[in-house]
């Protein structure tokens, strides 16, 4: 039989068709798919025994109770303890010990014009340089300051004790931190301690920008708002998430909150809706009247964009839905209100009886680890004299805050060194000359003192879950080494944060005040605990100490006045936009955030990225800038390339500048300077109401 070419082709073709009818090619395709999905470089999740460790999130002052799910001793998930929830930062907290910006050794940073050179250095060298700067400051009669990002901790007390031995020294609380507005309220009211709020008491809250839906204040408060159990009136220039959830949103021009508060106070008084006597007794009546003089409905509308009818309606709303409370919340990216707004809001609270109702209470301070020690005073950074600091120490070991660096820089004398303690080479620490690495959350015990708005003093502990990585320094050990090098005797016997914490717990136990509340809400009086060690053990197991609640107070110790408005931009600086820095609350609390937050910032448009300017479409048209395009933002502090976004929820004439996590904070290589640094801060340290211009570019 002859085999022709046709036969060969028929067999080949038939074979090709026939093989498609067998599983072989399909199996090959399947296997190829599987092989190509299992390369050796694909990350492998950990394996091991599953355990759950109770701790508390130390990434913000709120200190939410957390159950860390661990595999082989490594945390793989952070879950809120029963009944709670976590913010995106808290949900990803277990990523932070592996963050690319984590420091392994102490470093020296040499800052260039547009770059920085980072080189390793020994801890001894940093201690010696810092001690030398302390000696020079004493010789030159210059100041030394510590910028404390999380005031109220035992470590904060240790800094005060260290600086207490120096003739010119102060501990400054970080500008823009959570609770700065409550501290301001306490200072203006002369409360002689901290002021807290009990948000379960008021039926109505008049909030001047407090981001209640965005991580500010207890979550239960916003839950009450959503359930219509608490009436929220939100005054702010943007329709934020909080404003969207409020019963009433009153858009006002940035920086005009004081006038709105004063106008509401006037409406309350003129319409006989409140008793003026408490304000008269507080000594603030004359100041209020002085500022109200000459205010007409026309001037009010021009300055605030709020009509008199709206103001009267709000006043009637507040008077008929008491107890009422006025809140002066700080914007996480923009910091506190101006002093005049804080004073006006205090006047409103006095008129509304917020102190008598217990909505605002004087809170006792936590006991110090060692009694009767000589301590340096605690002040606000902006109140320190410009050019006065011969040394600035930054304690960012327990968190960070977003504020313009020029605000701190102008306090420094020429050539003054800056030494930072931080787990990460990011955030504020990136401005320092020396950075001492500290342990991040989950690798060290963290003390969680009273959250800024708490009505009673509280103390919780964040127990470590991971083994500490080598190379980090305990801030308490650094303070001890520094004291030794500078020849300063510190009060008490301690050399670590844990020992300091135990001393404070011993002081709480000795005072026999308050109770321990465990995870199941069982309350045990502190007096029932046999020893301070038992209290410490309870706290490390996830319990919380809560002090007895302070009594409401109504008598202010010193008269206050409503100061005049701060001056506008510098003469000759032409602007056409009100600059409003904004940020989500969680990401401003930590210098580094999980790269997974790109889901919110880069992979979707849920949260705008840093360096985005949001404008009303009408404003964008006026300025000839377009959505999605780049432009140059110019302020008194500098200029930066930004991306323009348009949104009808922004008031015309306002530029909302997003202070989100910088790419470096998300884990990308170091880039340009932080955008918050170009926000101009006035002499009182307020940067939430700046001015700017936007040009095509």
């Amino acid at each position, binding site marked *: 039989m002859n085999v022709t070419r046709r036969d060969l082709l028929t067999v080949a073709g038939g074979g090709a068709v026939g093989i498609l009818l067998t599983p072989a090619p399909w199996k090959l*395709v399947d296997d190829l*798919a599987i092989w*190509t*999905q*299992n390369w050796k470089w*694909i*990350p*492998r*999740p*950990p*394996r091991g025994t599953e355990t759950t460790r109770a701790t508390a999130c130390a990434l913000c002052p709120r200190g939410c109770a957390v159950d860390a799910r661990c*595999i082989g001793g*490594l945390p*793989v*998930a*952070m879950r809120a303890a029963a009944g709670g*929830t976590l*913010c*995106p930062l808290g*949900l*990803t907290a277990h*990523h932070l010990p*592996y*963050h*690319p910006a984590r420091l392994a050794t102490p470093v020296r940073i040499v800052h260039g014009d547009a770059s920085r050179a980072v080189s390793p250095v020994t801890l001894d060298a940093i201690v010696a340089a810092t001690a030398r700067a302390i000696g020079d400051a004493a010789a030159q009669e210059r100041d030394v300051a510590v910028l404390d990002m999380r005031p109220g901790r035992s470590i904060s007390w240790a800094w005060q004790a260290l600086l207490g031995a120096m003739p010119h020294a102060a501990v400054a609380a970080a500008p823009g931190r959570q609770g700065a507005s409550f501290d301001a309220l306490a200072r203006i009211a002369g409360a002689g301690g901290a002021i807290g709020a009990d948000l379960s008491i008021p039926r109505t809250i008049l909030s001047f920008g407090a981001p209640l*839906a*965005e991580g500010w204040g207890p*979550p239960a408060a*916003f*839950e009450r708002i*959503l359930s219509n159990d608490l009436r929220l009136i939100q005054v702010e220039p943007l*329709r934020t*998430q909080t404003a*969207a*959830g409020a019963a009433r949103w009153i858009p006002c021009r940035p920086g005009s909150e004081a006038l709105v508060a004063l106008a509401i106070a006037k409406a309350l008084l003129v319409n006989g809706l409140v008793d003026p006597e408490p304000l008269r007794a507080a000594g603030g009546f004359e100041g209020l009247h002085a500022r109200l003089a000459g205010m007409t409905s026309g001037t009010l509308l021009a300055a605030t964009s709020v009509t008199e009818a709206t103001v009267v309606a709000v006043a009637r709303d507040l008077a008929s839905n008491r107890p009422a409370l006025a809140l002066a919340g700080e914007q996480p990216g923009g910091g506190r209100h101006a002093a005049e707004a804080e004073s006006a809001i205090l006047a409103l609270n006095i008129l509304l009886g917020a102190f008598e109702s217990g909505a605002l209470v004087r809170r006792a301070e936590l006991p110090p680890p060692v009694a009767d020690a000589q301590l340096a005073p605690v002040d606000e950074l902006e109140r320190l004299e410009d050019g006065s600091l011969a040394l600035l120490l930054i304690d960012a070991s327990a968190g960070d805050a977003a504020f313009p660096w020029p605000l701190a820089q102008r306090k420094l004398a020429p050539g003054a060194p800056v030494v930072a303690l931080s787990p990460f080479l990011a955030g504020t620490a990136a401005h320092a000359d020396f950075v001492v690495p500290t342990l991040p959350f989950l690798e060290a015990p963290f003390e969680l003192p009273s959250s800024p708005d708490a009505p009673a003093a509280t103390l919780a502990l964040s127990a470590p879950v991971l083994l500490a990585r080598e190379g980090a320094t305990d801030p308490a050990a650094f303070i001890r080494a520094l004291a030794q090098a500078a020849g300063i005797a510190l009060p008490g016997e301690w050399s670590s944060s844990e020992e300091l914490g135990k001393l404070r717990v011993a002081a709480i136990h000795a005072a026999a005040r308050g109770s321990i509340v465990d995870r199941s809400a069982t309350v045990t009086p502190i007096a029932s605990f046999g020893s301070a060690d038992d209290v410490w053990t309870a706290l490390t197991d996830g319990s919380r100490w809560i002090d007895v609640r302070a009594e409401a107070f109504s008598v202010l110790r010193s008269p206050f006045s409503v100061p005049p408005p701060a001056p506008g931009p510098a003469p000759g600086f032409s602007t056409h936009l009100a600059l409003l820095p904004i940020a989500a609350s969680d990401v401003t609390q930590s210098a580094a955030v*999980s*790269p*997974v*937050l790109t*889901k919110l910032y*880069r*992979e*979707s*448009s*849920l*949260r705008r990225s840093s360096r985005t300017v949001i404008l*009303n*479409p*009408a404003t964008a048209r006026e300025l000839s800038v377009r*959505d999605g395009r780049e432009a140059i933002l110019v302020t008194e502090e500098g200029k930066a390339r930004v991306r323009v*976004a*348009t*949104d*009808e*929820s*922004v*008031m*015309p004439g306002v530029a909302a500048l997003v202070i989100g996590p910088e790419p470096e904070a*998300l*884990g990308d290589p170091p880039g340009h300077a932080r955008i918050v640094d170009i926000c101009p801060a006035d002499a009182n340290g307020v940067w939430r109401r700046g001015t700017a211009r936007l040009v095509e570019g």
Partner: protein
Amino acid sequence: MSTEARKPKSRYGMVIDLDRCTGCGACSTACAVENNVPPARETAGDRTGLTWMRVYKADNGKAFPENRTAFFPLSCQHCGEHTPCVTVCPQNAVDINPETGVVSQIPARCLGCRYCMAACPYHARYFNWFDPAWPEGMEKALNPDVSVRMRGVVEKCNFCHARWQAAEAKAAAAGTREIDPADYVPACVEACPTNAITFGNLDDPGTEVAQLARSEGSFRLLEGLGTDSKVYYRSEHDWVRRLGDADVSQLERKVSRG
């Protein structure tokens, strides 16, 4: 096979109350952590990112100050009878779990043809354009219950399938086939701080999710397509409910517009 025979034992679904959603992003973040969804590369954007649960921001189109916004958490809608992605997959890499009614994606079978992405009217499927990568060491923080997917495959929400498996194993250990509803809660539901998401068996009339799904104000996205999706939304506002008929790309355009 008859329709009755294909009917799943349970029909898990969720109801999302848009009036309670504040757009905090906790659901998106919790989902990414639970399911080992890698972070974006520097070059990745909203078109190449992986967001099993993406929250869109939509507005009522009015000018300031009448403008109103709503946040739309959007994951796979877990279609019922006529699931477009199941129909088009040449590899049987997509199927409907007969136990739960959940539309599953099987990455090991996926060839990356992306037919399913083209077919999905909700834009809820994502393609792995890059190798999954976390910063060095961060793989120690991954969830061991969920496999990491490789470049070249499609992935999407599966109502936290690993949690369902764990709940089923727990029920089996207790000698029952009935899962305790408290044991099977997807990560997004667990993380929502305002309790905007309710989850459960839509076929059990006694569950809150079933009652909410049938209540006034509830709607489904693109209901006219007849996909019989198992994710319901609810709102008291007409303009929000009308967004249910909008193409998802319209929501996206609103987002890019701001």
